[in-house]
């Protein structure tokens, strides 16, 4: 079976000017990320700020070309694809953004917003056909057709997120990249939107690349989980395996730091601050904050290797 998405050693480096006298620095937003998503499954990518998860989202949705590595979607190498192939791939991958107040064009009616992907990719469709498709998409996300002629500012955050999801569905994609889709929403609306995403997965077989920092959400919706730190994947496993037996110290730190209602546990805060992107530490990026660090960690970057059912990048695992 061809995997829907296959990324090998994706890297994205930015050069940052640091003033007239200093040489430019390099920010390694993505530093060798490999992952695979099978059709109909949900891969959750967990990370904090600076982990590279947003850069990963931009690479997978083909907005930014990676500086190194290969990305295959539906078996097609994105870096080598020609214009027509890229256009076709665009219909396979769509995105839902974090901020529902910024992801809808304030100047367009909902009907125009939803119709835009069709107008671009399926130019032969008539305006009426586009409107019908928009109405159907709205119904799928639980909104009535009265919304079609309104504008985004007339809707609440949760409703806007539904519209954003409807837009992502217009081209019937195989993969939806969801970048923190519920982080900006209230708890009860979060639950509604997460349910919607799960229902859509069941009814249409959509795969998700679900980016979040909230491990509790991950526990609910993911099939597989990848934990990112400083541009790399440090652990990757099936959901159950990750929560029951996390192998990487950073994963353990994340789990320990997440507050839960029950059992009521006082989260243990980790030590230290994340390193600055312009001054990456030698060796393992986590060694400065790791309770288990040894000398080897300070010099050698651990490779992602398989230990049991988990892929983990730590010298001390397994």
């Amino acid at each position: 079976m061809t995997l829907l998405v296959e990324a090998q050693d994706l890297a994205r480096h930015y050069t940052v000017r640091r003033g007239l006298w200093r040489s430019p620095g390099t920010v390694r937003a993505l530093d060798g990320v490999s992952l695979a998503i099978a059709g109909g499954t949900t891969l959750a990518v967990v990370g904090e700020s600076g982990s590279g998860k947003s850069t990963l989202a931009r690479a997978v949705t083909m907005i930014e070309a990676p500086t190194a590595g290969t990305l295959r979607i539906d078996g097609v190498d994105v870096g080598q694809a020609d214009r027509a192939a890229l256009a076709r791939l665009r219909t396979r991958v769509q995105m839902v953004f974090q901020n529902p107040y910024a992801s809808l064009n304030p100047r367009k009616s909902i009907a125009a917003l939803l119709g835009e992907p069709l107008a671009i990719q399926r130019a032969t469709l008539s305006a009426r056909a586009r409107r019908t498709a928009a109405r159907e998409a709205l119904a799928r996300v639980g909104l009535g057709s009265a919304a079609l002629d309104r504008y985004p500012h007339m809707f609440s955050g949760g409703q806007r997120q539904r519209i954003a999801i409807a837009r992502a569905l217009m081209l019937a994609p195989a993969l939806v990249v969801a970048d923190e889709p519920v982080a900006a929403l209230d708890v009860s609306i979060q639950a509604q939107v997460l349910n919607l995403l799960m229902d859509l997965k069941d009814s249409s077989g959509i795969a998700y690349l679900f980016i979040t920092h909230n491990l509790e959400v991950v526990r609910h919706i993911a099939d597989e989980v990848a934990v990112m730190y400083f541009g790399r994947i440090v652990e990757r496993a099936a959901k159950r395996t990750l929560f029951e037996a996390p192998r990487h110290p950073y994963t353990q730190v994340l789990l320990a730091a997440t507050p839960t209602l029950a059992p009521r546990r006082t989260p243990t805060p980790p030590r230290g601050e994340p390193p600055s992107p312009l001054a990456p530490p030698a060796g393992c990026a986590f060694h400065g904050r790791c309770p288990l660090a040894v000398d080897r960690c300070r010099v050698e970057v651990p490779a992602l290797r398989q230990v049991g059912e988990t892929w983990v990048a730590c010298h001390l695992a397994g």
Partner: protein
Amino acid sequence: MALLDIEGLSVAFGRPDSPIRAVDGVDLAIEPGETVGLVGESGSGKSVTALAVMGLVDPPGRVVARRIAFAGRDLAALTPAARRAIVGKDIAMIFQDPLAALDPCYTVAFQIGEALRRHGTPDERRSARRRRARALELLAQVEIPDARARLDAWPHQLSGGMAQRVMIAIAIACKPRLLIADEPTTALDVTVQAQVLELLARLTREHGMALLLISHDLAVVAQSVSRVAVLYAGQVMEEGRVPAIFASPRHPYTRALIDALPEHNVGRARLAALPGVVPSASARPPGCLLAPRCPRVRERCRIELPRPAHGEGSVLRCFYPLVPRGAVAADMGT
């Protein structure tokens, strides 16, 4: 005597003939050294309550209260100057987005110094060197690494977690008796959040400071405070001690909030979500505000507004509350 005593607080916006009630008859009391949480979703009025206490609600907002007393003195009755002498010194506040709350044009040392210049000891108000030394002390107290170098840093050079620590340093500079924290960790990563919450817990313990923690995150509130009030659409629905209120909530809304959490739905395909949305300002139901969405709603709920009923260390605004296992069902027909 309660340190902060709020009785019948209401804040309305919009035109007087069609007011938008952000806060609607809220009562809250905080004892010295106590940690209290204010939980609610957007539109619940939790932030506006704090702003009303601080006197930060600008016209056209209208604040009406039977009493907003701090250490026995009614804040609303004071002159603006007298109020400013208390607010900022004895009551301090930190906000959600630390990078937006710090002035980008001034260094960390200057901004801490500003608080000291206004409310510090006479010595601090006079001597710049004394202020700088105190600023260094405060940065060390909030566990900022490499504090001496950070003194002269600009806000844009700080990460979110560090900026929040600086905000906390400014807030505790004058040893306040009450610290109001409005969503202090919402904009922070989870590891940084854990660090900041631990810092707040330590500071409140060491300084005997009372804490009013406002958040939409139940788990954050659950681990940080000893008592919590749950707000919905500007009204207090339930108030109780932690962890009892979360272990056995009596109000259907509290129950629904807990049930919607992913951690409470492990193994289930769908999260138990409360249908509908918070009532808009123009469409407030005549009876209980939750009635349109409540799974336990009955006729009475739709026509009559439940009054808050005071129990032992708890408050409940519901005619048909959930019954904790083993207790006798009491009809709260007040």
